[in-house]
């Protein structure tokens, strides 16, 4: 293309480009700190509910790792777990089988979960909308930069809003497109600024908490169903110790070295 370059005022970068980036970085940091502060601390759980979960976890652990037990130990535990899982000894709430199923919308735990979800969404969207409106209102109506790569004409509507020049090359864009580029591109900047160590620790904690199955919580299955299923799983377990046939396996593993000797 032999069209001459559009001459852009060098002052634009100090008064438009850098302020938008600066504001977006600051708002992002503010938002992440605010969500951290607004996060409710871990709630104290009722001991019976916790006991129910942990007993189920214990049964699952037995099911997965039964190979380390001897035959006798295995039989003892199998008997104990099937009997206990089928009784209601570890249930958090012993429900009346004739009662109507509770309406999930009136359940206070459900409401809490919904509230938290709504809070997270609001914290995500409101700042973005405000910044977008601010950029649109404050820096409207002029070309601020030339993109280093060509785009198709389809982007003209979106990226050149407020510029009434129908034949202008799409590479010249208005402030809103710089906003979009920032919106998608600032993630590495945030993660470098905030330091991922704290974030990593937070993630680990969350993972550990999620490891316990969600029984009786919003959307979770009922305890008696899970207990029955686990009892059935344990019922059909056949014992296979890791020491079965260990001599053959060791000999097989080191057969080549033995031959060499």
């Amino acid at each position, binding site marked *: 293309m032999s069209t001459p370059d559009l001459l*852009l*005022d*060098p002052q*634009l*970068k100090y008064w438009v*480009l850098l302020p938008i*980036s600066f504001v977006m970085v600051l708002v992002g940091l503010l938002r992440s700190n605010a969500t951290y502060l607004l996060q409710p601390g871990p709630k104290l759980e009722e001991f019976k509910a916790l006991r129910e979960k942990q007993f189920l976890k214990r049964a699952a652990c037995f099911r997965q790792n039964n190979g380390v037990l001897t035959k006798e130990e295995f039989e003892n535990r199998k008997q104990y777990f099937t009997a206990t899982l089928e009784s209601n000894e570890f249930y958090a709430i012993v429900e009346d089988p004739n009662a109507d199923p509770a309406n999930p919308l009136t359940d206070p735990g459900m409401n809490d979960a919904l509230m938290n979800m709504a809070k997270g969404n609001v914290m995500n969207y409101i700042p973005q909308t405000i910044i977008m409106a601010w950029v649109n209102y404050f820096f409207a109506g002029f070309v*601020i*930069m*030339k*993109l*280093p*790569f*060509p785009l198709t004409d389809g982007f003209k509507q979106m990226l050149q809003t407020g510029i009434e020049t129908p034949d202008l090359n799409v590479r010249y864009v208005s402030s809103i497109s*710089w906003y979009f*580029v*920032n919106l*998608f*591109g*600032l*993630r*590495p*900047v945030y*993660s*470098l600024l905030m330091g*991922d160590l704290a974030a*990593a620790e937070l*993630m*680990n904690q969350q*993972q550990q908490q999620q490891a316990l199955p969600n029984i009786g919580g919003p959307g979770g299955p009922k305890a008696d169903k899970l207990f029955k299923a686990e009892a059935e799983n344990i019922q059909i377990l056949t014992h296979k110790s890791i020491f079965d046939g260990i001599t053959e*396996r060791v000999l*097989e*593993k080191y057969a080549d070295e033995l031959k060499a000797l």
Partner: protein
Amino acid sequence: MSTNDEIIYYPPSIQTNKQKLQRAQDIASLVLGVGCGILTLESAYGFVFYLAGITLTNGIFLTACCEGKPEKFFTKPKQEIFLEGLFNNVPGFVMMWCLIYALVKASS
């Protein structure tokens, strides 16, 4: 080795390894963007520059941080190191590229 040996990974460690890789790629994509802007590369050349740069970074990560044995640190090493980071880091690169390109162009 008997056939029923399987490698057991500890998920939090895998997660930490991924975060370290991500951090290296974050820095690389921003630095590549700055470099691309300073050189005022345009359109396809810029993306080729990015592709070469990020692959080089991944290669260095592979030899320096994983000691050439990525399967010890990642469950799906080839895909996780070379493919996933390639596309996730494009926006960061494009942002720095646009910014520095605009700054360099405006003052020349």
